[in-house]
């Protein structure tokens, strides 16, 4: 049978177009279709919802496709290209570069365009919209010479735009036609609360005013705004329109597809337009005549369209338009029937003008069901309230307790039904969350995130997820066991505190006073790490040598055949030719396999345990020291080449990486630690994939924390922005020490962050705002570490007692263990494994090197 591949064209590469392609690849649509994606913007799809953070993180961090292409070779992406016409009869589209592309199926994902009202002066210089990265770049450029600016439109996007202007140091006015801010989502009282918050930040809000004219100065640029029924003009140097969006449906109109009365391409429940080979999804589509200006419904439409193309039954029948967001630092949430439109609906209101909190619940006439609500200033209850609306469950007896200040936000005492949707971003129900906990797949928030995706997008449901886990354990009478092992009834953090308070220096002291038995492979390395963090004694010292795990015990990394690998420190990845030659010579002389690591250094494999001191001797003599590749400790601080060489660099990233690596080298921690420093927002050092990542800005450094690669990758999150080098190091000292003190054993920074009540905000309070007054203490602990650092390799080769353990056989130190043998592959050694122990004499032992 001849199998002819078909072609699918996607017009538009925004968030929804991108999601469509991902879903198409994942669900196997590319088995039958070649996909051609035509995107108008110069860059591939990026996170438009987080657009405001562009100034902080740069375009690359927002990008969904930093490499510029999809991994699936059957998807071709054309950026900077526009579909200009559709010929439905010929089944082809024309592009603005003159090309013609045939299609078997066409998906329109052209999105929406900002609506600019026809106010005179709307086409002046320094009048902007807020939709693309290019818009933001232009706004940033104009802000440099602007004192004051106005955002026309006080809705959700308008406030985002106002936030951006405010961040750029422009005196910002918000001009709204409606009598209040966010008129679509919240009521008058909520709007007043929000206005107070916004004005406290130094912005000015003008509600109920209509802009009549944007007036120009002599230079042709914006000079002032004139309002209807107001004499005083408002002096501004720039204007941003954010007065709503309109579906971009022109392509559909031009080729005769049906469109909705108020705009948007009419589609059925499977996203098919009036031509059944053409689909429309996202903001350009109007299922049932209505367009949806949020990303979540757009994503649903993308999934439904893929399903339809595969012949599936999925439908889109409307979306939950509930929203929760942080605008200018203020929590705002609106859900369900927020305006009490249901007949007979009752309102329950809590307002605290001093604290700036307004909460309203809309309940059914009989008081039994929650219909909707509005939260301003404190939206912590959103995670419980929204699923209560969606599931239609019966309200508790005193529903007002759900919004009173004492409530924890996790809705303790409310029992949601199993079908209640907890995570609306990823459509995860309570039943699904409880199921993964009940069958043992997960026992904490991090585990639930990994198993179900709940809480991985906006994070608003995390407190509820946490409570569901605790409730489940309480219901089966299981206490969440954080004790470290059978020998200590303590968690790692408690153990850390016990050592700090009593000043214990040895395992014997600790287990006699607080434990039982003689320890094991879990508690011993944990105690060794805690002692090292607090006292920084040599890991092979008398008190600690017997506690060290596999790699620490021999200051090298055990490999599968019982040999070791050796990694000298190369701070920041910077190395002289002379040192590089020494590494090569050592590897050659000892016959070691060499490989460049991901952390910008060189790993030398295949050393026998008894060879290690001689290898270290050579390396130390050449000025190297241990790279601690074997420890739960700082590994490397990776860097890009930075401003010294790079045309784009704005700071000396190599210098900073070296300073940080030398400062934190040898620091023992609950898990390995990695750092990265990038010299500009292009982020070539991949710093946001590290436990701490530093990215240069024009003004200093942005500090990101709690990222990692590995099995469950996590992007580091911004802890502090635009700090100078001294502040950066102070924050890092505090952050690292706080993590070392409080994390569980083998808990990396990202899962540690998940386990902290209040998450990143809480860590910022402690590290940046010093809310617990711990700052000086944490810095002093780090100073002690820095001051007491010694190179473990050098200390070992200088100490006969420590050296004594590096022998093959205690009774035959000159005989190498014949169980370790190698073969050759690609001109280097590789381990040769034997399925039985090798008896000496039956094999000729591999000789020791002559070097």
């Amino acid at each position: 049978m001849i199998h002819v591949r078909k072609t699918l064209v996607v017009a538009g590469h925004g968030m929804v177009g991108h999601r469509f392609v991902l879903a198409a690849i994942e669900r196997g649509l590319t088995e039958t279709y070649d996909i051609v994606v035509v995107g108008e913007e110069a860059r591939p799809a990026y996170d438009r919802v987080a657009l405001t953070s562009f100034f902080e993180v740069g375009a690359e961090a927002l990008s969904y496709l930093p490499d510029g292409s999809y991994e699936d070779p059957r998807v071709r992406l054309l950026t900077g290209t526009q579909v200009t016409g559709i010929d439905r009869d010929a089944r082809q589209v024309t592009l603005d570069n003159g090309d013609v592309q045939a299609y078997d199926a066409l998906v329109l994902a052209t999105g929406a365009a900002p609506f600019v009202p026809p106010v005179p002066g709307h086409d002046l210089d320094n009048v902007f919209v807020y939709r693309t990265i290019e818009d933001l770049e232009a706004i940033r450029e104009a802000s440099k010479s602007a004192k004051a600016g106005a955002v026309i439109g006080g809705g959700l996007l308008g406030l985002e735009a106002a936030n951006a202007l405010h961040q750029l140091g422009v005196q910002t006015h918000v001009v709204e036609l409606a009598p209040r801010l966010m008129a679509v989502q919240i009521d008058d009282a909520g709007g007043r609360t929000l206005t107070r918050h916004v004005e406290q930040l130094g912005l000015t809000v003008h509600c109920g005013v209509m802009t009549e004219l944007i007036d120009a100065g002599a230079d042709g640029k914006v000079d002032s705004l004139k309002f209807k029924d107001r004499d005083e003009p408002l002096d501004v140097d720039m204007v941003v329109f954010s007065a709503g969006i309109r579906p971009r449906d022109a392509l559909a109109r031009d080729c005769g597809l049906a469109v909705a009365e108020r705009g948007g391409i009419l589609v059925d429940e499977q996203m098919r337009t009036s031509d059944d080979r053409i689909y429309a999804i996202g903001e350009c589509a109007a299922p049932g005549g209505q367009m949806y200006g949020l990303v979540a419904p757009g994503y649903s439409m993308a999934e439904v369209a893929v399903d339809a193309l595969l012949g599936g039954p999925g439908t889109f029948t409307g979306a939950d338009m509930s929203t929760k967001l942080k605008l200018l630092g203020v929590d705002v949430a609106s859900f369900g029937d927020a305006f009490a439109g249901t007949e007979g609906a009752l309102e329950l209101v809590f307002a605290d003008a001093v604290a700036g909190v307004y909460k309203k619940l809309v309940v059914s006439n009989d008081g039994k069901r929650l219909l909707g609500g509005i939260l301003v200033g404190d939206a912590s209850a959103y995670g419980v309230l929204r699923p209560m609306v969606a599931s239609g469950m019966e309200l508790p007896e005193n529903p007002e307790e759900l919004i009173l200040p004492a409530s924890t936000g996790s809705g303790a005492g409310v029992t949601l039904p199993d079908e209640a949707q907890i995570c609306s971003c990823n459509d995860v129900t309570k039943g699904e969350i409880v199921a993964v906990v009940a069958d043992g797949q997960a026992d904490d928030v991090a585990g639930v995130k990994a198993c179900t995706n709940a809480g991985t997008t906006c994070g608003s449901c995390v407190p509820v997820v946490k409570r569901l886990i605790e409730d489940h354990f309480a219901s089966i009478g299981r206490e969440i066991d954080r004790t470290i092992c059978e020998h200590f009834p303590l968690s790692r953090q408690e153990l850390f505190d016990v050592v700090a308070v009593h000043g214990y220096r040895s395992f014997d002291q600790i287990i006699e006073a607080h434990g039982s038995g003689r320890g094991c492979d879990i508690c011993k390395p944990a105690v060794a790490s805690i002692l090292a963090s607090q006292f920084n004694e040599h890991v092979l010292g008398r008190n600690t040598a017997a506690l060290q795990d596999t790699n620490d015990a021999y200051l090298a990394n055990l490999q599968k055949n019982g040999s070791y690998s050796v990694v000298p420190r190369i701070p920041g990845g910077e190395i002289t030719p002379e040192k590089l030659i020494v590494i090569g010579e050592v590897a050659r002389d000892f016959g070691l396999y060499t490989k460049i690591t991901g952390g910008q250094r060189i790993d030398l494999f295949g050393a026998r345990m008894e060879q290690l001191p001689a290898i270290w001797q050579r390396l130390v003599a050449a000025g190297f020291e241990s790279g601690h590749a074997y420890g739960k400790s700082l590994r490397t601080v990776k860097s890009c080449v930075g401003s010294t060489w790079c045309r784009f660099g704005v700071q000396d990233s190599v210098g900073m990486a070296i300073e940080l690596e030398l400062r934190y080298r040898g620091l023992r921690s609950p898990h390995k630690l990695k750092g990265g420093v990038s010299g500009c927002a292009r982020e070539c050092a991949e710093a946001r994939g590290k436990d701490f990542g530093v990215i240069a800005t024009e003004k200093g450094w942005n500090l990101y924390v709690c990222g990692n690669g590995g099995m469950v990758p996590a992007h580091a999150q911004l802890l502090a922005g635009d700090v100078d080098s001294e502040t950066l190091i102070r924050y890092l000292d505090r952050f690292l020490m706080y993590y070392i003190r409080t994390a569980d054993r083998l808990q990396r920074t990202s899962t540690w962050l998940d386990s902290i009540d209040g998450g990143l905000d809480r860590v910022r309070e402690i590290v940046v705002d010093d809310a617990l007054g711990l700052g000086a203490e944490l810095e002093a602990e780090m100073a002690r570490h820095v001051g007491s650092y010694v190179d473990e390799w050098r200390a070992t080769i200088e100490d006969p007692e420590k050296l004594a353990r590096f022998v093959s056989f205690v009774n035959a130190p000159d005989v190498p263990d014949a169980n370790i043998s190698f073969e050759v592959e690609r001109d280097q050694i590789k381990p040769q494994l034997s399925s039985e122990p090798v008896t000496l004499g039956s094999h000729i032992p591999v000789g020791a090197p002559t070097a």
Partner: protein
Amino acid sequence: MSDWQQICRVDDLERERGVTALVHGQAVAIFRTHDDQVYALGNYDPFAHASVLARGIIGTRGDVPFVASPMHKQAFDLRTGVCLDDDSVSVPAYDVKVVDGTILVGPRKASTLA
């Protein structure tokens, strides 16, 4: 070949650590526990197929003294060589005696012969 082979002084061993000795042509792991008992097991980890057990951490599970393989942490009873995580797997255990402070390793314990 004598059944008992002299290895080293007890004092040459750190408490709660192992060393590797060459006994009858085989790599044997010798351990000294906290209470100065000395045990000897085959050094070859049957899970990882590598000669490494002497480099593991020593501890107790309940009253059972054990070594955890440095490779993947399977625990072996120091007295019998039986794996505590999978009792169908074991490593050879050897008789040990200490004479005048010197460790002597004897033949494989009868109970561990298959």
